[in-house]
């Protein structure tokens, strides 16, 4: 909006920011990291870098599912419940060997994604409602499964392989889960920019009517997106359980806002068609460092929460201001 009235020089750097949001976001990340290092010692040690990457990984993977949905103009509010459920199933079934347990956990993701995708794609249910209802269903299923002799009752034991992958160290400051993250990131970045499905995802988010007229089968694109989203959610849940060393029916719930926020800060528009996973990666890193900074400050949990909400809001505001990417009118 204001870009049109600004001086040409100002418009240039704004244009650069619009074209390459990663540049500005990297700047924010570096500044934030340095500020954090002044408050929390050890941020520049191997261990400081490692813990940042380690903690950013599950968030970035949950945010990946959010990014995919948001690119089509949707949102997935069932990610965290899917993550919880998948991690719980894996830990509960770990007696049957890692392959079966991990397979079952991914099946949870596939099943959730299939239902979400059919609802949103075929029956055209509003994504917000569909995934909200799904979160409700999953919460109920987990609760019912846990009480008495439900299907989730019984002992839970974390898979050793998860513990190794999620919290081990590859070399130096590089945690092992970075491997998983790197594979996901490479697949998403390549897939979104170079494959037919990737372009279709952007197109559906940008203008569904034009897509339909151009012969794109929108329901197939949406089905694929929600399937991918739920599988990524399951993966994120598994990695989180490996880091925390335990499973609980609501352990990743606090990640719902950060996962949406990471995508928004990373420049993905919640209205669809704009954004990408590179920005989301930086968004997830920024939020993780921010969390570390708030933990270093000597305040109560309550104030930390207030600050977190306000800073997320401020970052989103600045981003929208600078790039002129406005919602609605």
């Amino acid at each position, binding site marked *: 909006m204001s870009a049109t009235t600004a001086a040409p020089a100002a418009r240039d750097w704004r244009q650069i920011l619009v074209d390459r949001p990663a540049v500005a976001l990297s700047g924010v990340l570096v500044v934030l990291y340095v500020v954090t290092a002044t408050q929390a010692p050890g941020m520049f040690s191997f261990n400081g870098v490692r813990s940042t990457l380690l903690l950013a990984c599950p968030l970035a993977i949950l945010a990946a599912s959010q990014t995919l949905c948001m690119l089509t103009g949707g949102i997935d509010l069932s990610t965290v419940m899917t993550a919880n459920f998948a991690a719980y199933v894996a830990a509960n079934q770990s007696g049957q060997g890692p392959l079966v347990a991990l397979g079952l956990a991914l099946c949870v993701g596939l099943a959730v994604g299939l239902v979400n995708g059919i609802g949103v794609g075929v029956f055209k249910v509003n994504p917000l409602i569909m995934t909200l*209802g799904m979160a409700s269903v999953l919460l109920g299923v987990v*609760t019912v499964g846990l009480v008495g002799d439900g299907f989730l009752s019984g002992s839970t034991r974390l898979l050793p392989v998860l513990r190794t992958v999620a919290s081990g160290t590859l070399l130096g400051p590089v945690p092992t889960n970075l491997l998983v993250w790197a594979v996901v990131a490479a697949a998403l970045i390549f897939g979104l920019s170079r494959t037919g499905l990737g372009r279709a995802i952007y197109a559906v988010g940008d203008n569904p009517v034009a897509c339909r007229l151009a012969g794109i089968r929108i329901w197939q694109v949406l089905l694929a997106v929600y399937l991918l989203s739920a599988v990524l959610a399951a993966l994120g849940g598994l990695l989180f359980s490996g880091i925390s060393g335990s499973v609980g029916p609501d352990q990743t*719930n606090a990640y719902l806002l950060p996962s949406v926020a990471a995508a928004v800060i990373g420049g993905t528009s919640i209205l669809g068609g704009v954004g990408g996973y590179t920005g989301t990666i930086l968004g997830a890193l920024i939020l993780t460092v921010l969390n570390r900074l708030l933990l270093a400050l000597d305040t109560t949990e309550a104030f930390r929460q207030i600050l977190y*909400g306000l800073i997320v809001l401020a970052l989103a505001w600045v981003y*929208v201001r600078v790039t002129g990417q406005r919602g609605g009118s």
Partner: protein
Amino acid sequence: MTATPQAEVHTPLPRPSSRLERFGRRQGWVVGVALLLAALVLWRSSQIPAFGAFEVRGIVAGTMTLALLAMAQSVIVISGGIDLSVGAMMVLVNCIAARLMLDQDLGTVVLVAVLVVVVAMVISGLIGTVIVVSGVPDIVVTLAASFALAGLALVVLDGPGGGTNLRFQELLVGGFDQPWPAILWLTGVLLVVWLPFKRSRLGVATYAVGSDRAAAFLSGVRVGRTRVIAYVMGGFFSGLAGLVTTAFTGSGEPRASIGATATLTSVAAVVLGGVALLGGSGTLLGPVLAAFCLALIPPLMLGLGWDPNYAEVARGIIIIVVVMIGGLLQIPRRSR
């Protein structure tokens, strides 16, 4: 030219719709929800041997919070937004009220009640202003706000505690077998606050902004101001919801998950109540009735001898199925 007799041309005039048709189109969904509620209440009453004032009071007073939150969400959705912080606002108001009302006489308590509702309106108006001024989508702003508000609630009250005046509780939600205060308050709010608002210029502007922002702007509606006022109205209703929570439980509880669950249920009630998420249509009566329907599910399941934990599953499925049916009903209308 004019002399040649023109062939009889039949321009098909649109048939004027009858009063009944118009009523059906506008209020059909609400009537459907009302019938569903009536059926559920009948079912529930057949489950309990003595269905009297005590049970009615339990249902009405227990659901009042949710009904008020559904109203808050509806006003905002009608104006074309969505507020994921209504539940957190309710928790915050509950905590402030419980802290200030502890061991006070009725006069002070009523004063505090008015004050906290005003606080809720101001905060909500602030959220609305941020949305309008910043251009950040509603979902993002209110999601972030829900975090901040939940933190604020923890600052006010760091654990379950606080209290209120017994007389105030009876006035707002009624004694154990007094269903009337709760019923009267709910209908009162609908009749005294919502109906005049809906009929006023502001109300019409709210619907206009929700249905087409650009068209509303071109017809001279002050879009930004109208959207902020919708959020202030939402704050009013969520503030009331917080007060009712305080009166119903007699204490304050700063747990964030209560707010999150309440927010999700309020969105569900809005959708079930026939308010389109796209904005610009629906009324507040539908969501209120829908809130009662949703709240009746757990006791009904208990009555059937099922695990009430299935209620969460049933709620989710009902929401999805109802929206699917709504979507299918829309298809013939669209293609016409």
